[in-house]
């Protein structure tokens, strides 16, 4: 589904990604872990198309298309979803109206008819249950005055609505208490199927207790320095990142 080859990127004058290789297939969950400043969030940002990040080398192919050539909205329409680390507040735009617009823009791109009001509401009700989010919250301005947990739940709600092929969860666990974490993870798990894939970007192993990954990759200084199964996350939790840093230094 997603093939990243030797991806390099910088922001301003600072080189952050130094050659990333990654293969993600349908049905898989990949966790990208690493210490602060290793480039985890940069990778997520580059994949979602943030303009501040300049790709200086490498390739990214998503479902046969050159992802790096696509505008952010076209990436979303092709099936990429990014759950933001810090979801932004937008006064005056309700989540409901926002989702209706987004969904219909994506449908139009795919040659589908716009959803009528009834079908949209039906879909919304169904997805609301999945992430245990209340309609009153969705009628309000997008994320305005929401708690950290409510914002993250809203991200997962949007993900459920848009049914992406590849979801990238950028530090979704940050700022969540254990109950909110469980709700968010439950939502993600229910959305998993053999046709979609998930990349979880996280500093801590905690979220991976709830969303069990197939692969774990450790990012350090802009490169994947170690890959393994879910047990690698536990090892990191037990030993900390210094262990990896030392290994890299020795090599």
């Amino acid at each position: 589904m997603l093939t990243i080859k030797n991806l390099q990127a910088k922001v301003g004058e600072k080189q952050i990604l130094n050659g990333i290789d990654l293969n993600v297939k349908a049905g898989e969950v990949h966790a990208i872990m690493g210490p602060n400043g290793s480039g985890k969030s940069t990778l997520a940002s580059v994949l979602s198309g943030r303009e501040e990040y300049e790709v200086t080398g490498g390739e990214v192919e998503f479902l046969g298309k050159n992802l790096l050539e696509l505008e952010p909205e076209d990436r979303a329409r092709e099936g990429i979803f990014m759950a933001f680390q810090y979801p932004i507040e937008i006064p005056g735009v309700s989540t409901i109206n926002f989702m209706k617009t987004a969904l219909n823009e994506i449908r139009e791109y795919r040659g589908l008819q716009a959803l009528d009001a009834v079908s949209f509401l039906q879909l919304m009700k169904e997805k609301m249950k999945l992430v245990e989010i209340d309609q009153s919250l969705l009628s309000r301005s997008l994320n305005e005055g929401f708690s950290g947990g409510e914002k993250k739940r809203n991200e997962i709600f949007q993900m459920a609505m848009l049914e992406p092929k590849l979801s990238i969860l950028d530090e979704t666990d940050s700022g969540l208490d254990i109950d909110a974490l469980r709700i968010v993870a439950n939502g993600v798990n229910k959305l998993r199927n053999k046709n979609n894939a998930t990349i979880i970007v996280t500093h801590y192993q905690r979220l991976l207790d709830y969303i069990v990954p197939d692969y774990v990759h450790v990012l350090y200084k802009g490169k994947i320095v170690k890959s393994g199964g879910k047990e690698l996350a536990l090892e990191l939790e037990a030993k900390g990142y210094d262990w990896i840093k030392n290994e890299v230094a020795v090599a």
Partner: protein
Amino acid sequence: MSTTVTRDIKNEIAEAFHQSKFDVANDHRKSAFAFFEKTGLPGTKQEEYRFTPITKNLEKNFNWDIKATTSSINTIDEFLIPNLDANILVFVNGNYSASLSKIISPDTEVKIKTLSEAFKSDSATIAIYLDKVLTPESDPFAAMNAAFWQNGLFIHVPENTNVSKPIFILHFNDAGENQVISQTKILGILEKGSQLSVVEKFDSVGSNPVFHNFSEEWIVKEKSHLEYCKVQNDVGKSYQVANTIIHQSDNSLLNTFTLTLNGQWVRNNLSIIIDGEHCESHFYGLYLVNGNTLADNHTVVDHQKPNSFSNEIYKGIMDGNSKGVFNGKIFVRPHAQKTNAFQSNRNILVSETSTVNTKPQLEIWADDVKCSHGCTSGQLDEEALFYLRSRGISATLAKAMLLYAFASEVLAPIQNETLKSYLDILIAERLHNNF
């Protein structure tokens, strides 16, 4: 240099005045004209018109050999507000059109007359109020209007009366064949405990220049309630100066909304005199401009008595080479203790060539008051734009959504649902198509 220009145009205008054959209010006009002749039009150095040197443009674009210009228009349907069940009053090039107007409210609810009629039938009331709050001394264009008005409206609501249908006033200027100079005037009086909703719309057609000098006075007496909405949607060669003054007495309520969408230059002087206790005034404004439009809102809230509340929110979106000007004065007089006065002016500059000048001016003589003001100007939030795009929404649509979200807050005080939904669509369509 500018003084010479002013003197020339003043002489031309004086000549025009002496040649005009007014049929009513000659004494009244003469005293206003005497004042106008003394002060003339504002020069470029005059602080109040610093960003809007309109005199130069009048000199450049108009001749003052004023003849009544004709219009072949016979339907105004496209300028009406669909489904708004209202009294309709139409001015074409400054003259009242009885054939295009339609009064549906009974005389017992509201008296609606042309100003020239009212000079005969209601001369005593006219003598008390006309040009008394908006005096010729308050603004050069008000003086000019008091001398030159072609026609206007006299609207009088009796005590304890709720006017059930709004009054819709269309100021239409047709510059298809010639330049148009139109000068219209409104005097509205809401007696104690009455209620009225007024919608004013300014439209024009044609490629010749239009100058519309408009004055209005609203007297809102004790326990009365005025809803006031103004929509300025003239074509790109129109210059407008609108002097609006609203005088409030005890326990009165006022909601105003001013929407500026188009025109070459629009200058609004809106003043609220809060001459009563326990009054509430909300005045909201929105200017959505592009091209070479200049939208200048000068507002004044004058708290003269204690215990009243005023809340002002003006927002601007500027694209192309357009300019926005906001000047908001708040006066709190020495006796006006326990006043609450709030003001906010926020602007978004969509293009790099658009500008805005914003200036709050607070003069507070009382010591036990709550006043606040704030103004901002900036670009669209890039983070918010990216967030919307990352969900599949195109950059153009995302931009329109964010601008609409910013703008639509100012519709909050509008009570009439038909009017509100009309304005809502007008704003949304404009942002989707023109920005």
